């Protein structure tokens, strides 16, 4: 006769980290407003996809077959796939490494390093590849592509991982230590699994961007599949062939989505308990401080130093003459205007989609989320031409208006906002929302008073990423913005294609500098997550 358990022999924990939901899935049905918003977003993403499908159909099977099945295309496809397969793990290593150093150790100057490593996202791709070819003229091929991509895109990994590291409950790691794991063991067996969602989200974002990347490899002689797409536009001047080829990218993107979904498994979100965890004690690096600082400095030099050095060199050659303030200020104003509006709108629209993705279960939720990523894997010219075709025939007054270009930005950059808003929503345990409802707040009031406030830091991060993306965007702006629009990105491109690098440099520099306060806002907000 054994006495039934008197109760869990708990230690005095402030919050016990909850294991993945053991009770049956509580699928919430989204309300009418949310469903309507999601329907609009999904319909929007179908425009470029529909255009690609139409192009494929209009080309016909035989011609499509001949266009796709060529040795050169095989070579390009291999390049694209190899690029993704090699770059993403590299970005994982760098992003997680930097995040860990900056968040979990006692490295001096952490407050300085933190915002710095988001700035590489603001460097125009052309500047990056030009700078690298300047430093190592013989740099070409797959490894050149890997170097340029990794240094440009690792912030996509670094950001969510750093934010998650801050939120982790140190009690779990302390338990692991008490069970005999050394630091390495704790990291690989306890910390890394909890970072899984952040890593997968960042990896997906990087992969999707690499599929669509075109300008970054311009100077380093590395051709990816997008080159084949662009060539068709160059040669045939008829959107169908190029867009049909873009369908191959769509398939690759679907493969990426499936891979991420499989890796994510059933844990759709990571819960950290509704109580607030203590901040973790920083790990003492001791003698390894030097190694840590050197590593970070090297990364900063490679990712930022090389392109910024090129810009400064051009500016030095150009002297004071290149600073035409009227033009620069106008361009700056327009860039900020467009980027702000797009960032806000994209983030607002990301909410219903993220809500459905996080709170509902089932194939529909996954499909809704996935549709956004697929559009992002298409090169800008495909999406832009899709919108040109649809708008000019169906809604002529909208053509080349502000509404259209902002709409295009929302389509193109929804994933950046989505990944972050999704992570933020997942942080809000349903028990908090239930508590609010039991205290008399209607679902709408609960959303505003609890959910929105708790996801604010993640939302800010997403908005900042979209801001930087819009500021550096080129192709869609060229085709769809109202005539007379002149953003920093457009000015830089126009001047650099005339080889007037000295005159172009101020615009690039302003772009990079503009990104700094934006990333600081990003980090200030992300830091608030730790206070949760």
């Amino acid at each position, binding site marked *: *006769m054994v*006495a*039934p*358990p*008197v*109760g*869990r*022999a*708990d*230690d*005095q*924990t*402030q*919050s*016990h980290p*909850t294991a993945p939901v*053991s*009770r*049956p*899935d*509580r699928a919430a049905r989204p309300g009418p407003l949310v469903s309507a918003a999601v329907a609009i977003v999904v319909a929007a993403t179908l425009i470029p996809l529909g255009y690609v499908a139409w192009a494929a159909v209009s080309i016909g099977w035989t011609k499509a077959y001949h266009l796709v099945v060529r040795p050169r295309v095989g070579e390009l496809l291999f390049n694209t796939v190899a690029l993704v397969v090699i770059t993403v793990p590299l970005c994982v290593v760098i992003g997680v490494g930097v995040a860990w150093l900056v968040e979990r150790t006692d490295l001096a100057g952490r407050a300085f390093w933190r915002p710095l490593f988001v700035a590489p996202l603001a460097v125009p791709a052309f500047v990056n590849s030009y700078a690298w070819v300047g430093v190592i003229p013989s740099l070409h091929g797959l490894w050149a592509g890997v170097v340029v991509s990794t240094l440009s895109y690792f912030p996509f990994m670094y950001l969510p991982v750093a934010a998650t590291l801050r939120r982790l409950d140190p009690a779990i790691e302390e338990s692991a230590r008490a069970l005999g794991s050394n630091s390495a063991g704790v990291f690989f067996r306890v910390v890394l699994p909890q970072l899984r969602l952040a890593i997968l989200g960042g990896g997906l974002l990087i992969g999707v961007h690499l599929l669509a990347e075109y300008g970054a490899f311009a100077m380093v002689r590395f051709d990816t599949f997008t080159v084949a797409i662009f060539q068709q536009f160059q040669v045939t001047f008829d959107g169908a062939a190029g867009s049909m080829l873009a369908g191959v990218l769509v398939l690759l993107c679907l493969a990426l989505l499936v891979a991420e979904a499989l890796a994510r498994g059933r844990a759709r979100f990571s819960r950290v*308990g*509704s*109580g*607030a*965890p*203590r901040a973790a004690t920083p790990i003492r690096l001791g003698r390894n401080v030097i190694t840590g600082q050197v590593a970070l400095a090297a990364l900063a030099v490679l990712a930022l130093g090389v392109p910024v050095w090129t810009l400064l060199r051009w500016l030095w050659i150009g002297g004071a003459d290149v600073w035409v303030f009227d033009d620069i200020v106008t361009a700056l104003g327009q860039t900020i205007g467009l980027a702000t509006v797009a960032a806000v709108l994209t983030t607002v629209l990301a909410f219903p989609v993220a809500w459905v993705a996080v709170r509902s279960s089932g194939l529909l939720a996954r499909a809704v989320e996935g549709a956004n990523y697929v559009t992002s894997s298409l090169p800008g010219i495909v999406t832009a031409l899709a919108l040109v075709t649809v708008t000019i025939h169906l809604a002529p007054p909208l053509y080349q208006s502000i509404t259209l270009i902002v709409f295009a930005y929302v389509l193109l950059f929804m994933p950046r906002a989505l990944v972050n808003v999704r992570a933020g929503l997942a942080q809000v*345990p349903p*028990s*908090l929302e*239930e*508590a*609010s*409802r*039991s*205290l*008399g*707040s*209607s*679902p709408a009031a*609960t959303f505003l*008073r*609890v959910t929105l*406030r*708790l996801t604010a830091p993640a939302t800010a991060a997403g908005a900042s990423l979209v801001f930087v993306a819009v500021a550096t965007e080129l192709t869609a702006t060229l085709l769809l913005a109202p005539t007379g629009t002149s953003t920093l990105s457009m000015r830089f491109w126009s001047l650099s294609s005339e080889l007037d690098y000295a005159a172009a440099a101020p615009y690039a520099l302003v772009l990079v500098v503009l990104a700094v306060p934006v990333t600081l806002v990003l980090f200030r907000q992300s830091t608030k997550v730790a206070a*949760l």
Partner: protein
Amino acid sequence: MTVATLEVNGIAKSFNGHTVLHDIDLSLQPGTTTAVVGASGCGKTTLLRLIAGFESPDAGTISIDGRQVASPQRAVAPHRRGVGYVAQDGALFPHLTVGQNIAYGLRGTARDEVRARVAELLETVALDPSYAARRPHELSGGQQQRVALARALARHPVLMLLDEPFSALDTGLRASTRKAVAGLLATAGVTTLLVTHDQEEALSIADQVAVMRDGRFTQVGTPQQVYRQPTDRFTAEFLGDCISLPCTVASGIAECALGRVPVQAADGPATLVLRPEQLVATVVSDSEHLDGVGTVIATEFLGHDVLLTIDPAGEAAPLIVRQHSFNPPPIDAKVRIEVVGAGIVLT
């Protein structure tokens, strides 16, 4: 007859084809505390969530204060039910201070009134009013729980629902907090329903205990009833230690290895179920007759109690007897076991 604060009739709920609750009936009288006790996963939290309104039932109805709030066809939204809900881990809003948390449900009230009410509630849950400015992560688990309680009480709910409220606390704190909370709920006169897997907790603070197993109530009654007169094996074993002995019943007396015990059962062979505290072990000198005498083979010191494992004469299995720890019989002592009180016969 007063209207029951909570009336649950024929509630059934399934998730993904798996039935969690079958035909649950429960009635709560105003001002009383009811405990639903059962093992983890038996469905008790689901019942609580149905009453709070976070899920809707597949069958049956729920009425609060005479007003029907849930049925398969329609359900009143949780924010309109006037029910206070305290989650297992407190669920305090991390972005608000303790004071703001407590005042969360007091929208539309004047500022000074709110402040006064918050101070009053903090006092009720035995926390210093200065805690109002602190943030949830600065409090210990027990303190967070109390703030959650105060927050739920702020709106004068007609019914309080507590989900395993004391399970996050360490044992020492658990008993005193339990007493305090029970006291304050009784003083406030709030009808309370709490779920727990701790049978001691249920028995000590509840006016009504409902034992749940696999989505059904095995027995509902007062603590004394369910403990002393369990209607089935599971209930008996869940609520405390049992000692089972084969016996023969004749005319209200069960004849077993320990002697004759009064029971209420039909004649014939049966299993006699006794509670450890019904057995008293007295040391005997070896010379007395060896009828009903056993040998102590192990003792377990629990502080104010001691558990004696006694090997009875014959092939019977060892018995566990619980008694006060003052001057316990040593190991290898010969003791006579007497049975106090009536026994239970269960099929």
